[in-house]
């Protein structure tokens, strides 16, 4: 972790994507989802990624977070070059360095809110006490202390998404990727959740990319990036 932080501070970038191309091959067909994308996110910057459906937003996030490997180009997260990583290295990278909040609520249904946060520790570093303290602190920041022992089914949509945000922050990531975090919420709840995201990111100085269709969200971001047909038009 210290080496990551050090290298991040030397480059000063949470994310550097250079000439990223992603081609999906479906049967004999080729879909160019990303076409020579260059994107740099500073170490404490919040970027809103906006674009029509099918423009490549999810693909971009997946590559930035090490879920997908690009067909071409290079990706560095917090100074760590991940383009050549094996599947196993990518898994370890995701565990240690990035946070994800998905479009659909993807909490583990048989675990309480607090346990959903602690899963991050169980699959990885096993810090025990330290992790439990961190989970309690995050739950408090997210206003979920009195919901900590509720199962996801007993939480509202906004509360579930807040738990997902807490889970994404458990590993103290260099970069958090939000793929349409508010699309399942009504607009006032969505607004509230995005404000919370902004506060959390700014308080920690963590970089984030927030994918959205929703124009009202973009003013919470430091910068808005438009993507269309796999190309970035800033």
């Amino acid at each position: 972790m210290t080496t990551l932080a050090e290298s991040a501070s030397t480059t000063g970038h949470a994310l550097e994507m250079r000439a990223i191309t992603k081609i999906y091959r479906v049967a004999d067909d080729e879909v160019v989802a990303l076409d020579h994308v260059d994107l740099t996110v500073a170490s404490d910057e919040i970027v809103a990624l906006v674009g029509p459906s099918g423009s490549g937003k999810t693909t971009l996030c997946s590559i930035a977070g090490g879920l997908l490997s690009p067909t071409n180009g290079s990706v560095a997260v917090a100074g760590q070059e991940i383009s050549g990583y094996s599947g196993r290295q990518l898994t370890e990278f995701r565990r240690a360095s990035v946070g994800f909040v998905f479009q659909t609520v993807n909490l583990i249904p048989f675990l309480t809110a607090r346990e959903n946060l602690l899963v991050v520790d169980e699959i990885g570093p096993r810090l025990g006490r330290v992790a439990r303290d961190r989970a309690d602190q995050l739950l408090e920041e997210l206003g979920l202390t009195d919901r900590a022992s509720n199962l996801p089914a007993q939480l509202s949509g906004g509360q579930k998404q807040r738990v997902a945000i807490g889970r994404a922050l458990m590993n103290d990531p260099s970069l958090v990727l939000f793929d349409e975090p508010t699309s399942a919420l009504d607009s006032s709840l969505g607004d509230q959740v995005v404000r919370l995201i902004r506060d959390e990111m700014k308080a920690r100085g963590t970089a984030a990319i927030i994918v959205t269709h929703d124009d009202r969200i973009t003013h919470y971001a430091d910068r808005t990036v438009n993507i269309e047909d796999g190309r970035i038009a800033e």
Partner: protein
Amino acid sequence: MTLALREMRRRPGRFAVATIILTLIAILLMFLGGLLDGLVASSTGAFRAQRADVLVYSGNSRNSLERSRIEPDVRHQVESVPGVTRVGGLGSVQLGGRVPGRGARDLVPTVLFGYELAPRGLPSTPPAAGMVYANDSLRAKNVEVGSTIRLGPARSAVTVVGFVSDTRYSGQGTLWGSLETWRQVLNANRPDARVRPGVVQALVVQGVSLGSAGLPERIDRATDGATKTLTITQAVNALPGVSQQRSVFNQIIGVTVVIAIVVVALFFALLTIERTALYGVLKAIGASSRTLFAGVVFQAVVVALIASLIGIVASLTLNALIPAGTIPFVATPARLLSSAAVLVVAAVVGCTFSLRRVLRVDPAAAIGGTP
């Protein structure tokens, strides 16, 4: 592991079907095993009780006690083999017994043994002529200390002076007396099989192995092939029906284990398919396939252990409920624990069919619009 355990605690219903089926399989495995052990024990007790290293049959006996006869001169040859320390004669005869208190036509099948070297549980000096020790399975047939049993067509009387356990033979209760008692009863009831004084069916030999050749080889060489010497284990396995019983039962047990593997494989394959989305999310946040698969194996082992535990309790209960001398069933710790171990191994093997599916889950599928 914590995750796998929590899932089992919070969602026990998910695992109920698999646990119930595996429990039935565990009970079946343990019951079949116990029946096999019981059957084998009831046909081999008389030999297993021998405090001997080898059993000497006559060379033409085809490893059968009933067909074997050892003449006194052969016995002398065996006694003078270096390494042989003690030699005793053994004789047997199967006869129906009339037990006081039972109907005149209600014969109890028994085997009367004559011995010199005391088997486990019997006094070193055989009882006086006409006196016998009875295997305790005969208690269920009204035999008591002091009972006089009339054996065979000649109704030769023997009187029970005590009991001995685990010495059954061919599934029948045994009576243990002196060689003299045996010869008397045999000659009175089996005119075709009369033996002269000094003749026995087999020799029970204690001894040590000297040099490279084992005791059996040296004895058979010294008698120039007049004897066929077997270790007690070989003699037990040569008893009629024993190896057949073992192979039939072990085949049924083998099929049962295969069924257990199939049940676990199917069940956890279904569970893994159901969990594809969950595994996608866990992989996306950094769980390795190894961690996820370890969770599957852990759950399968827990299910197998619960099933085994219920099976063990059921077997012990059954063992306690079965009246002595009815069904030849024994629940031995070795059998119960080995059945549990086999079931756990079957569960682990069954899980491995889900390994590929766990490896194939794509974490990229977790993010994005469609879960």
